[in-house]
């Protein structure tokens, strides 16, 4: 075996070993959060602050559909905190004896019209009747909280029946955004918190939908039974109420409880 090759092998072994060691360190029971996809950008910023304040308490987040997380937690999924886009889900878990805390309201979500190809800030719900919008994406109103609010707003504006044949349904609000981002749907109704992300804002504005047109999208979180004795869970629940976290949530367009 030639000399440089042996050195390469040794280097690779050292690299693999260091990877394994970091993995072992990280596996010291990090706290695991299940979070609704609308929190994707806001929560990341809050977590950055949390990581600076509490470097000894690692946190992992899984983003997805609030409804699916509810079933998973009911069936024993190892999540310590559950941030739902619909406060009804953590309430149901509390009733089922799956919560180690009260249901804590953390925000109220808003919906917006958004497009990737044009500046949607010049649009209104009424302009959706325009034939140039061949496909309009909303989240599935049967099980996605943001989709349900989008449906309510369209019904309240008297547009639902005319627009229904042109609707396509995303499985959750992030998938809905993806359908619009690909251009396959010209316009969509998504979460304000997603449209407020700087990288997304760069590509055009959004039109805020009047919240009088739909039931408030109250969002809540719980410490799950699994996270009941995890010290980080309580710490993070408190951090979520801190002025810094509230500022970030506000910047992403969430309406905070008591404001």
């Amino acid at each position, binding site marked *: 075996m030639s000399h440089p090759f042996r050195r390469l092998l040794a280097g690779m072994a050292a690299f693999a070993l260091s990877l394994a060691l970091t993995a072992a360190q990280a596996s010291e029971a990090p706290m695991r959060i299940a979070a609704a996809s609308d929190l994707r950008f806001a929560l990341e910023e809050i977590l950055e602050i949390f990581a600076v304040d509490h470097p000894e308490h690692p946190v992992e987040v899984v983003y997805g559909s609030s409804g699916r997380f509810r079933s998973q937690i009911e069936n024993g999924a190892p999540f310590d905190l559950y941030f739902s886009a619909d406060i009804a889900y953590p309430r149901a878990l509390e009733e089922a004896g799956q919560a180690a805390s009260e249901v804590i309201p953390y925000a109220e979500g808003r919906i917006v019209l958004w497009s990737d190809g044009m500046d949607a800030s010049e649009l209104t719900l009424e302009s959706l009747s325009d034939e140039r919008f*061949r496909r309009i*994406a909303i989240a599935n109103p049967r099980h996605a909280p943001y989709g349900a609010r989008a449906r309510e707003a369209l019904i309240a504006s008297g547009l639902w029946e005319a627009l229904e044949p042109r609707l396509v349904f995303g499985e959750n609000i992030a998938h809905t955004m993806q*359908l619009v981002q*690909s*251009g396959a749907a010209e316009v969509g109704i998504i979460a304000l918190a997603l449209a407020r992300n700087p990288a997304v804002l760069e590509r055009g504005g959004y039109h805020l939908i009047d919240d009088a047109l739909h039931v408030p999208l109250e969002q809540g979180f719980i410490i799950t039974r699994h996270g009941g004795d995890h010290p980080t869970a309580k710490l993070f629940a408190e951090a979520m109420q801190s002025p810094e976290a509230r500022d970030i949530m506000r910047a992403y367009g969430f309406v905070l409880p008591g404001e």
Partner: protein
Amino acid sequence: MTYFGISEADWAALQLTLRLALISTALLLVLCLPLAWWLAHTQRRIKVVVEALVALPLVLPPTVIGFYLLILLGPRGAVGGTLERLGASHLAFTFTGLVIGSMIYSLPFVVQPLQNAFQAMGRRPLEVAATLRAGPLDRLVSVVLPLSRQGLLTAAVLSFAHTLGEFGVLLMIGGGIPGQTQVASIAIYSHVEAFDHASAHRLSLFLLLTAFALLVCVYALNKRFRVAGIMP
């Protein structure tokens, strides 16, 4: 109109699934015959690249295929964009889009059994038929197809069954439009997400029994001739 407690919307989803599976299987069989024949007999170096491409859907997660298809078939993609420029509509959220997705997803399940069958058959029977003055079409119909019927049946069954259970690709490019792109697997997913476990059960059970009946038929046929690949 509800049978077995399955709602009208769910029947529409089942019907759509069946139509999708039949159409994409039929198209795949026709298109893959020459491809598999070429793969079975070519000596060219490019063969390994083509074989790798054909097998790619086996190892890629369906969401990756779905993601690229959404981009490709949408108005800004190569396929969808060209259609738009020609005055037609792009293919995201359409049944045609689903057929294309299913065909890519099930491609290896059709090509590989056919290629195996053609390789096992070899060139000899064709040469004999040619010396007996059988024309090219006659050779295909009277020699190639009957001799490779095991491979054909395997390919057809695998592609059909695979499309019945397809989910990730269709979820990404479908948009879940009832009656147009909402297939059975997506309807079940939607029932589960909405905590409608009763509907999810009924539809799932129906699919389960259908798949079982399909396989019983295949095993029954298999008593008459062995189906290469999936059976011992």
